[in-house]
């Protein structure tokens, strides 16, 4: 059993905007590229050109179809598609850490990032079993557990320009749906976003206290309520071409 720190000095994490995520997988591949070349063992791929390709990814995007419930205002709501990027949530009460038999999994005191010290990892897989989010993947070539590092080798890296000291997924996200920051600071941009947009925990009932937050999709397709308000904009100036041309003359006079 491995111990979690009582508290961390900062709570670094991501806020992911589900209203804006178009499901393009840019974050998935940028993460794969950076973390294959950097922290620890490369993220391997088995059968990469064959019948059943499967590799290690620290971040994956799932898409879910959602059927909103009918309401009196919206009796036949259209189905929606929600893109849902998922990676380690760097939980405050991370069950993957406490379950680790070797101390390889740990949560950093200075920033709260949950990491795997690969040299101590025996690949037993207990942490992946304990994580309710399925955010850990055992690398099949290396036999060690891989997970999101929040790009711990980027965010403090003095070899990178300061503006690039953020996780690869955040830097690359074309729609700007991913934000990185310190959730222990209520004035940070990420804390503000969470406050303004009702940022949510993923599966709070699990009691893991995830640091990462999700901004819910804004309501969609709610146009029925606007019909009456907007109707005056279509008040006809004329029904027939001749009447329209008469209106044209009158209006041009005033220009």
């Amino acid at each position: 059993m491995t111990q979690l720190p009582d508290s961390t000095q900062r709570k670094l994490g991501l806020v992911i905007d589900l209203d804006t995520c178009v499901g393009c997988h840019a974050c998935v591949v940028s993460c794969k590229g950076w973390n294959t070349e950097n922290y620890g063992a490369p993220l391997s791929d088995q059968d990469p050109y064959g019948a059943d390709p499967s590799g290690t990814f620290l971040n994956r995007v799932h898409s879910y179809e959602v059927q909103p419930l009918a309401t009196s205002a919206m009796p036949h709501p259209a189905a929606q598609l929600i893109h849902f990027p998922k990676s380690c949530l760097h939980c405050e009460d991370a069950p993957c850490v406490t379950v680790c038999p070797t101390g390889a999994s740990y949560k950093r005191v200075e920033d709260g990032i949950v990491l795997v010290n690969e040299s101590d990892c025996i690949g037993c897989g207990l942490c992946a079993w304990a994580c309710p989010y399925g955010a850990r993947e055992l690398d099949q070539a290396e036999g060690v557990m891989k997970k999101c590092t929040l790009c711990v080798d980027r965010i403090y890296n003095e070899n990178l320009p300061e503006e690039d000291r953020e996780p690869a997924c955040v830097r690359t996200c074309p729609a700007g749906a991913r934000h990185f920051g310190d959730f222990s600071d209520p004035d940070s941009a990420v804390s503000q976003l969470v406050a303004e947009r009702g940022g949510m925990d993923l599966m709070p009932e699990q009691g893991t206290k995830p640091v990462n937050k999700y901004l819910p999709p804004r309501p969609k397709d709610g146009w029925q309520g606007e019909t009456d308000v907007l109707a005056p904009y279509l008040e006809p100036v004329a029904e027939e071409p001749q009447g329209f041309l008469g209106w044209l003359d009158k209006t041009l006079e005033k220009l």
Partner: protein
Amino acid sequence: MSIPMPNLDTSPHVSDEVRKTTCYMCACRCGINVHMKDGKVAYIEGNRDHPVNKGVLCAKGSAGIMQHNAPSRLRAPMRRVGPRGSGQFEEISWDEALEQAVGWLKPIRETAPEKLAFFTGRDQSQSFTGLWAQQFGTPNFAAHGGFCSVNMATAGIYTMGGAFWEFGAPDWERTKLFMIFGVAEDHDSNPIKMGLGRLKERGAKVIGVNPIRTGYNAVADEWVGITPGMDGLFILSLVHELMRAGKIDLEYLARFTNAPVLLDSDPKSDDYGMFLRDDDGKMLVIDRRTGKPAPFDQKGVQPDLNGHIRMAGVTHVTVMNQMAERYLDAKYSPDVVGPQCGISAERIRRIAAEIARVAFDEAIELDHSWTDFRGDTHDKMVGRPVSFHAMRGISAHSNGFQTCRSLHMLQIILGSVETPGGFRFKPPYPKPSTAHPKPHFTATPGKPLDGPHLGYPQGPEDLALHEDGSPIRIDKAFTWEHPLSAHGLMHMVISNAHAGDPYKVDTLFLYMANMAWNSSMNTRSVMEMLTDTDENGDYVIPNIIYSDAYSSEMVAYADLILPDTTYLERHDCISLLDRPISEPEAAADAIRWPVVEPDRDVRGFQSVLIDLAARLGLPGFVNDDGSAKFEDYADYIVNHQRKPGIGPLAGWRMGENGLSDGRGEPNEAQIDSYIANGGFGVFHIPDDAQFYKPWNNAYQDWAVNLGLYDAPAPYLFDIYVEPLRKFQRAAEGHGDRQPPEHLRERLKHTMDPLPLWYAPLSDEREDLEEFPVHALTQRPMAMYHSWGTQNAWLRQIHGHNPLYLPTHWWEKLGLSDGDWVRVTSSHGEITVPAAHMAALNENTVWTWNAIGKRKGAWALEDGAPEATKGFLLNHLIHELLPPKGDGLRWANSDPITGQAAWFDLRVKMEKAEAPAESQPGFAPIKSPVGTGPDQLRWKVGK
């Protein structure tokens, strides 16, 4: 209690060097930082300074390292040794390969240059490949635009001097209502995602119009699940409502469009439907100050939108008058249109009202004064913050040209083109059809063609026809069948060459176009045409040369393979003479350069063409003594001049007083300067020239100075396109050049000078009750056509492609998870895996494009899901319309531009017994490169 923390180096070495070049993982052309370690590519990220992507990068771009190192890369020139289609090759030297090519090409050039058909696919160097074909002398050149989005491009150019994507963009920072129609997610992909992100941040509203709710439509605030092929009717209904309510920008229409231009409106007149012009050929308007006719561009003129005049017994009325006659007609009312489009009348009205509210109640005024082409100064820039974007979904129909025109007309009546908050052009656009070349096609043995191949016809006199009316081009571009086929018809080349209609060719030379698979309609038949033999046992298409970097399906069907490099190993130029990467605020161009050298015996295709040009002695590519003028493509990029002072790259030229942008002499250090600047050049537009570009003197002067035009060329937006009327008049019997009888009625109907909607052409030849379902493809954001599959990372995201069925059909067929369906069109049949999707138009099915692969291609193993479960819809789509018993071959294309009508497809479906693999299946091709490794652990740094 303190817990011991492992020692962790949080500042590890990132890379030895960053090399900045241009991505080629799709057509977007973003700037990339290639991190190098030990001379190898270690990591690729977006370039923050780049005008296109500003640092971000999509999944494809980030997976570039897997493309650059793909096991499917070709390794050396090859000569076919087995039968065509078998994939049996022997490697040969470059000298042997080039001599073989010259052996085929030289006699053609000397006797009948049209016997070479040279078509390039996803080529990003068309101004160069086109010049090569022009100097060779064949009229038969085009790139892939004909089967991609030529409707969009051509409709935009004829209507307002540019379309979407490369031509222009929404004013993302100011627009308040954005409507996006039928978009391919791999065109302009990062800018649209960035723009949507900005709109979400600002709280602007996004309406997605698409039968399928994925991607951009999934995040849209409102989704309009329109029935395919009906977009034009929906748009014209919005136009109907806006005009009826007077919610149109009269000042804008009067000043900047041909709405006030006078038209001959007497059906008995010889010039019926033509503009009234003065002796100088200038279009005339009625000046509201005098009530008299005046040239449209006279200083101070106040064009009357409702002017009319009787001259020599002939009544002339304005274009606006004709628009009122047409679009106020009740046939465009939402009550009539709604049921046809699958959108309620209430909703069409509500969208029209919302457009009206935002355009007119939320208008933007910028305090920038500017002077227009008439010399009139305006103290403000007024904007209507409604903007639009569209791409293949509306254009890949046989009514696509007029649908795209309808959308542009909607933008224009709102006054939201080139105004703040609306749609803005990117230099060198705006550029009207009259400022582009006309098509050239006169071939003379041993000589160059008389000019550039592709262009914008202004009337029947510009068609590429022989005296006897037969087509000059192998693809029948610029004929009565498709008069405005400005990008050619690549999808018809193999079919026509095989049929000998209009004639047979000797050599088919293709670059980067997978015509034996996903880039052709009717794929199985195309493979048969490529392998068909005549009575002597010779191939009907005698010689096929193909250049590609990868082992695509097309490789097996060529006789000679010229292996290209990857995009990180080559010089390229993204030129203002070609398809540039400008932004609304600035012109821009870019290069690629070899950030690594090839480790195989491959050469950049453009350098190979330069070598071939020298061996063939093509003018412009050889010196007077016959020696090669250019060493390679890089040398050409720097030293070629299209006209004095204008070359492929605009930046760092040698002016009279040192370095200059736009115009100037070649500079030997130019490529180094681009490399030092991050691989691109940006040329900013001054503040007072940022909007109203077609009419703004400050912009026109800036554009002339940069070399985009030689003299200011202001123009009016063509809501009414007079060249279309000229073709219509010919069809009515006017003029010497007459269409064949069988096309007269179609030309009269479709070449309408005002936008209209008509049903997709195949509808009248299909039994719509038998085939009630529309079938579409979409490109996934994480794949580019067939290329993504060879990419070990991307194929884990999109490795197979079920057919998605809406709830209505899923339930009707009694399907459950894991079921397969047999899908039948009037042309063919496929049996494929099915999946349910609720967020879908109720009579539309769809799948991802080009995921299905043939066994043996792309260095995949035969069991790859792309080959066993993946499939192409192409098998269901014929390049010809169903025959109607007249013995004629009617192309399944837009009758105006020749755009392949992929999305007109209608099918029926039934539940099927699951076969072992998707059907139809094809025998494996022998891979010239073997298959990839069993495992990847990619790390280049130690």
